[in-house]
């Protein structure tokens, strides 16, 4: 149990089902998938046309690996995948996926939520919101869930 986490930055679309199938083992009774998806409205309710993500790959990948290791340390042995998109995304596309497979669901939920919370707080990824009115802003993460 507990293989090396699957950590990736991807220009291509994220296939959550494929990630789940890849990390799952027959010891896992629970597979939790978090997909962050591009919404039609920004947090301040502006109509969004799309997002672009930029990363510092060396630091981002290292921090994602750390977060996965912390989740395994805190919540017990589990399989983890963390994949984040970069480049341009349209509404409805998945920007980030965190998949956790574990023997039981409690620790899997906890590990999944921990990983996405920490990713949003710590990983060197930046998001530019492009609005329907032609405007655009670099948007930093709020502390909210």
């Amino acid at each position, binding site marked *: 149990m507990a293989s090396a986490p699957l950590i990736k930055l991807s220009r291509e679309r994220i296939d959550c089902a494929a990630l789940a199938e890849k990390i799952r083992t027959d010891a896992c009774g629970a597979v939790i998938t978090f997909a962050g998806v591009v919404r039609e409205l920004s947090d301040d309710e502006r109509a969004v046309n799309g997002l672009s*993500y930029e990363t510092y790959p*060396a*630091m981002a990948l290292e921090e994602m690996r750390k977060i996965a290791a912390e989740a395994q340390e805190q919540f017990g042995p589990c399989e983890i995948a963390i994949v984040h998109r970069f480049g341009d995304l349209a509404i409805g596309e998945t920007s980030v996926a965190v998949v956790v497979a574990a023997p039981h669901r409690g620790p899997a939920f906890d590990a999944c939520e921990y990983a996405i919370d920490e990713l*949003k707080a710590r*990983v060197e990824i*930046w998001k530019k919101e492009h609005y329907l009115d032609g405007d655009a802003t*670099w948007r930093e*993460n709020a502390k909210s869930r």
Partner: protein
Amino acid sequence: MLVRVLAFARLRELLGYAEREVELPPAATLDDLWRAIGTPELDVLRGSTRFARNGTLTGPATRLVEGDEVALLPPVGGG
């Protein structure tokens, strides 16, 4: 000495480059680097900018050496 500067997101746009070599006096600090590349628009972002030297976060008093890679990191927005 020469160091390589990487700029991301809003900082990249304000500086007009993603990556550049900068010539600094020997024993220069990150503070010195910021002054060397700075602009008035950049200075308002100083408080929210974090620095990494060769892939590791570090403080503005850090002394640089020839060949260092310095990243200028705005507040993150992933997820």
